[in-house]
């Protein structure tokens, strides 16, 4: 059941991420739904489930774009693990924390992907201002997307009775 839920969340996230329109003034940043699912798993699930979801989310995200398959997985695993290791000291009860983590993780993911793209020479260099906009745009969208996914995924798991490390917090 846990695996089915993970697959369902990833598919929904991928679908949303691919169809939601974007804007030039956000440097074409897409709402990072897949990253938000990874963050949700990093904060609430066991390490094994998180790693599986992070790798799968990365593969799906790269398959949707022209990115070398594995780049996003690498970023998701790296930044997700940092969250997972530090979740004991985080105020997970607060939506604000989730929003902040979403923003930071989205921004770091963009930086990580840019670094990987530059090293793999698959991309002509983009202007610095454009990269800045993209980091900012992703951070903004990450801050909006992460709490929404957190609430929806938590609610879905509670209703379907999926058990994991800790129950998602009931928001008041």
């Amino acid at each position: 059941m846990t695996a089915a839920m993970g697959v369902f969340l990833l598919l929904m996230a991928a679908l949303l991420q691919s169809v939601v329109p974007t804007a030039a003034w956000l440097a074409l940043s897409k709402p990072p739904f897949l990253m938000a699912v990874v963050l949700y798993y990093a904060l609430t699930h066991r390490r094994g489930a998180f790693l599986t979801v992070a790798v799968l989310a990365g593969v799906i995200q790269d398959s949707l774009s022209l990115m070398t398959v594995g780049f996003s997985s690498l970023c998701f695993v790296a930044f997700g693990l940092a969250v997972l290791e530090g979740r004991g000291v985080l105020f997970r009860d607060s939506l604000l924390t989730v929003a902040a983590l979403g923003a930071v993780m989205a921004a770091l993911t963009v930086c990580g992907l840019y670094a990987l793209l530059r090293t793999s020479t698959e991309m002509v260099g983009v202007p610095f201002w454009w990269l800045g906009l993209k980091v900012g745009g992703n951070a903004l969208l990450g801050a909006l997307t992460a709490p929404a996914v957190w609430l929806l995924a938590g609610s879905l798991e509670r209703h379907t009775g999926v058990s994991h490390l800790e129950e998602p917090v009931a928001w008041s």
Partner: protein
Amino acid sequence: MRHRKYLIWITLGTFLLVVINLPGSFSVFLRGVCREAVATYQGALQRTLSGIHRTSSAVGNFADVIKERDRLKQELAESRSQIRFTSSLVRENAELRKLLDFRESSGFRTVPCEVVARDDGCGWWQTIRLNRGRSSGIAENMAVITPAGLVGKTIEVSGETCDVLLLSDRSFKVSVRFEQEGSFGILRGGGISLQGEHEFDVLCAAGAPQVDYLRNDLQIRQGETVVTSGLGGVFPGGLVVGRVRRVYADETGLYRHVEVDSACDLARLDKVLVVWGGRR
């Protein structure tokens, strides 16, 4: 008092006798004056009465009126919907005819495709996804065109879909020739521009593609047509890329750069042709 009463009756009788015995012409004149004087008020009164009648009828048939109004509203909505549908069919029909004419007249062997998605999932590249892939004979690095001109090239192909890197993407490069001047150059995509009108659409804000490092002595004029040169093996020669928008000098003064207006409206791509195998 009684005499006065008789006097009134006698006067009245006399007056009536006089009136009755008026000469014919005067009688006609008097009748005309009276009729016309009354007619004005008759008309007004008649209109008022008709209005009252209509209003009372309408109030009496109010339920029917509401029913009728609802029916007409529904009919209007259906008619509008049909008109919209017909208009879209007409537009699609015209587009398909244009595409078919171009297919036959261009001499290229092409595969007609529909755009099923825009931009990649991360927003790093400017791409579109088409509904045809390897099963239709499409492979990587094939030119994608419309009757207006060059759109881009195929980059990733699966069984039933393919991704197209658009002319506007920064990593897109194509060897071009200035049609009148005859010189060659490498055109690269302009990426995303933050100037101009922006909508929630990736492709609306595409920057102008550029040809860089052109010699200063070349006589390239504004409005000149830019076509593919055929060099490089990916794009067949002679495909229209766009027109020269602006020619300006490099900061060092050693070279010139040319901005090109894309011939295709990349923001509104719907149906495209993938060129395979060169000319027939």
